[in-house]
């Protein structure tokens, strides 16, 4: 019945060309697989494609430049969305994790996109000692030592992140808004999703601790179109600021309608509001003035970043967004780890790669220095704050030119 694997490979263009072009040169290469599990179909498909591009670019580069001696990477896409669920499906994510674990060629994985999928995958990956690096799932539970018995029963950290968890992004922004923007009151919204709710919860808690009055907390249905009732309620409550935890699906509509109903309230969100989708879908003037955070230090005028953007655009004809970079970095971490293992002369196995990832130190990634703590979280927990300020000289839907860096959100 079921005899073939439900995966589809992307033979990365350059890699296959190199192998085909001079088969003798790399015939002895160890072909290793890296799985990338994202929600390639359904509600989050577009974001997934953009995220995956980051990894595709990184592995194409590594194969072309032969970064890791004796190793060719094959990136295998796994879709964790099903038509049955209409979006990401934790059961499918678990199946994918099992598929990767049961194939010894897999040395590491990237993903998943959603924390709900991560919760289903993590125990399986732990049992198989296959490390994964998530570019976008931010729910703190999975790497919380409190739940170590559930999410890493084998003991070692296997769920690494190149994003900060909600546990920092929300609270730090609360500090920023209280200290720098001097807000006295705030209204908090989320978008019903795991990411948005977690972010808003963390924000709300710290805002209260900082003495900011939380005038209300409510939840948007991301599929509904009309937020005017809730915005009217916020208008009547007259807060200094609105904080929204969530992604663009509801964010676009919120930005549009908030601009009309509460134009003078300070509006802020997390990294979910740092996207081209928002600029394109809501557009100016509605998005003008929104704050958004990114869970990495801002490396201004870094030629690396500019070069990456250029190459990315040349390859995919769209601008990279935040999670593209986190995914690119995740791939860089895996490549660096494989490099480290290969350098010792030992075979590149998943056990060795996991340990190498744990101890990896990428000093100058686009996200700043990358190192993981013993739970798999980034050691570096700097949260950068951006504000949307219209810049007519650049494309109006390019996040890099429309989001202005305004500073670092203070740690608690």
């Amino acid at each position: 019945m079921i005899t073939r694997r439900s995966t589809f490979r992307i033979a990365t263009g350059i890699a296959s060309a190199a192998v085909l072009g001079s088969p003798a040169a790399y015939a002895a290469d160890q072909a290793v697989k890296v799985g990338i599990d994202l929600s390639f179909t359904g509600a989050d498909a577009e974001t997934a494609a953009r995220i995956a591009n980051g990894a595709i670019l990184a592995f194409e580069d590594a194969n072309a430049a032969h970064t890791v001696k004796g190793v060719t990477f094959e990136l295998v896409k796994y879709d964790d969305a099903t038509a049955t669920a209409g979006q990401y499906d934790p059961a499918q994510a678990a199946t994918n994790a099992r598929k990767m674990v049961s194939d010894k060629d897999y040395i590491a994985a990237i993903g998943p996109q959603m924390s709900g999928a991560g919760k289903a995958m993590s125990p399986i990956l732990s049992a198989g000692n296959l490390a994964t690096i998530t570019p976008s799932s931010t729910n703190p539970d999975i790497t919380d030592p409190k739940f170590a018995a559930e999410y890493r029963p084998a003991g070692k950290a296997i769920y690494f992140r190149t994003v900060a968890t909600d546990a920092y992004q929300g609270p730090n922004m609360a500090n920023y808004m209280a200290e720098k923007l001097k807000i006295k009151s705030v209204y908090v919204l989320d978008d019903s999703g795991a990411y948005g709710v977690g972010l808003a919860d963390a924000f709300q808690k710290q805002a209260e601790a900082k003495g900011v009055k939380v005038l209300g907390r409510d939840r948007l249905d991301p599929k509904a179109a009309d937020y005017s009732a809730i915005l009217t309620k916020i208008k009547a409550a007259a807060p200094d600021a609105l904080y929204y935890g969530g992604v663009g699906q509801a964010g676009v509509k919120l930005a549009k309608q908030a601009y009309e109903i509460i134009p003078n309230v300070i509006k802020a969100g997390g990294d979910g509001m740092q996207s081209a989708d928002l600029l394109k879908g809501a557009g100016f003037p509605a998005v003008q003035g929104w704050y958004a955070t990114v869970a990495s230090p801002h490396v201004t005028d870094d030629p690396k970043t500019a070069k990456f953007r250029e190459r990315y655009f040349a390859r995919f004809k769209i601008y990279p967004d935040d999670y593209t970079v986190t995914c690119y970095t995740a791939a860089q971490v895996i490549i660096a780890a494989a490099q480290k293992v290969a350098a010792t002369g030992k075979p590149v196995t998943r056990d060795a790669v996991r340990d190498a990832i744990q101890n990896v130190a990428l000093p100058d990634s686009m996200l700043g220095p990358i190192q993981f703590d013993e739970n798999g979280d980034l050691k570096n927990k700097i949260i950068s704050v951006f504000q949307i300020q219209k810049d007519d000289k650049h494309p109006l839907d390019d996040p890099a030119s429309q989001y202005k860096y305004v500073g670092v959100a203070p740690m608690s």
Partner: protein
Amino acid sequence: MKALDAMFTSIAVRPFAGMAPERRRALGLLVLAAVLLAFPYIHDNDGDIDSAANAMSYAVLALGLNIVVGFAGLLDLGYAAFFAIGAYYYGIFSSFQVMPPWSGFWDPFAMLGLVEKINRGGPDLVHFTLSFWLALPTAAVVTAFFGILFGAPTLRLRGDYLAIVTLGFGEIVPIVARNVDSVTNGAAGLNGIQAPKLFGHSFGVSATPYYYVGLALVALLIFVSLRLRDSRIGRAWMAIREDATAASAMGINLTRFKLMAFAIGAAFAGMTGVYFVAKLQTATPEMFNFAVSSMLLVMVVLGGMGSVWGVVLGAVLLQLLQTWFLPELTGWVHQLGAALGAPLLQQIDFVNSTQLIFGVILVVMMLFRRDGLIPATRKMPALSYAAQHAEVRRGGFVNLDRIPRWSPAPGNALEVRGVTVKFGGLVALNAVDLTVPAGGVVAVIGPNGSGKSTLFNVITGLVEANAGSIKFEGAELLGLAPHQVLERGVARTFQNIRLFPNLNVLENVLIGQHARLRSGPFASVLHTPGNRAEEAAATGWAMDIIGLFGNRLMPRIAQTVSGLSYANRRRVEIARALASRPKILLLDEPTAGMNPAETLELAEQIKSLHELGLTILLIEHKLDVVTRLADRVVVLDHGDKIAEGRPDEVRRNEEVLTAYLGRAARAALMEEDHAR
């Protein structure tokens, strides 16, 4: 495909349709079971085994939905709600999500192993440790309760309203799960749900043990579904699906059996929920949204509504189609594209089009193969020439010796006193009095629209009376539900024939006995000795009744009634009513649409019932039939009783003549006008 079709068809064959394939079917099942049992060893890929285990979950869900939609015909668009309830039930009671403070109250539960005392700094807390094996059956009970709770408000609603209300419940449950964070951990999802343990060993993360549990669950629920389908319960559901009014008139308690369908269907989903989250060890509200409910409906429709093997096949196919076949197909097309150097082929991605493909499948299935891959209604055996050409018979029923005589108590069986029925401003019956002596035959005649059928409807509880009383054997019938009226011994036929069209002759007649049988769902599934005896007796009695009509019906026992001739459908309807062992039989124009020879045959058959002592109330237009059968005739016109008496008296009654002829004359005049 054809061979497979045949295999499944033979499995689904019911008694009497052919005993021969019994062995073949057993062998087929055995081979199937062996392959499925050996699968994890033949194909040692944890991911694929897990895929198969997921497909099992959906197969169970489809089986449950099939009970509600396929058997009972109740369109449920929010079925995933029960899946969610089962999932959260186990999730909450086997994780660290809810931890009330410890008190003495919890001691007995701790002794049962349901909770344990833990301390995480601060006061002692309760940690729920519900075992998976205990959770499975209890989840069935809990979700069955919710099935009844959600089903109850929908009982009075027509099918389409039912769909929207269930859809509403399907929306509400995930929203509640998302909003009550303290209990469900909201959108973030439950953490650390216990994996099942067996003899002290945890299932852990390996897919194989879950695969076997899933397989066992599917096997169990296929078994339960088949047993229920072929029982009194299943027949009642299918009767409701086919024609709720007729089902109720044949003694089926609609409330009870609709709720039972909801409850049992929900129980299946609840058990799947437990299984599903135990395997995943997490649960988020998104797992249970409308997409899941609608995809389950697609599975049921694809497989064949009401077909047990069909819906399992539908679920497994759709699940494998999206997780295995489409990605694989995409890979092949890309390889083909690379080989041919066609970049267009390399860009095709079937995975992104999964839903599109499902949509097309749905539409195409509905247009060209509505009954699904494995239709629930079987092919009918062809009739022989001899069987098709039944001779007109004279002299009443044959094989009457098998029917016990009625011995009615003397006096009036049915007493209708001053019954008035109004529809808005229209008075359909105006203070009508009527008595039927025990053992007698009374005919009701009157022009069309005179209230004859309304009289039957009010007696059998289908229509409410505005005033009056109807006593049967001294007890009041007014206010009773139709099924209660039948239980008292009042059975009827309908003027426009209301059989259960997609069921066969035998099933129709068996449903007639519903009120006289007692087996509940448990007895039906377990085939208790009592249940087996009862079913055997019921089949015997049905055969006796059908046997009365000789070779009119006997060769057609396994034919679905929708394919029968008009006269034969009338006969089946009478047989169905007789099967309920009535004390009085209400026949609404039994000979309508029959030719004179058939009319005479039926009249004599009815007469032979009368001779056995059965009390009969008859609506009839054919005066020769009335004269032949009736002791007394009641004439209605415009809801008023205008005459009553012996047939020959009534024939000469002037008012009756005007009622009939006046109209006929007017109609004739109008006809002439029109022609001009």
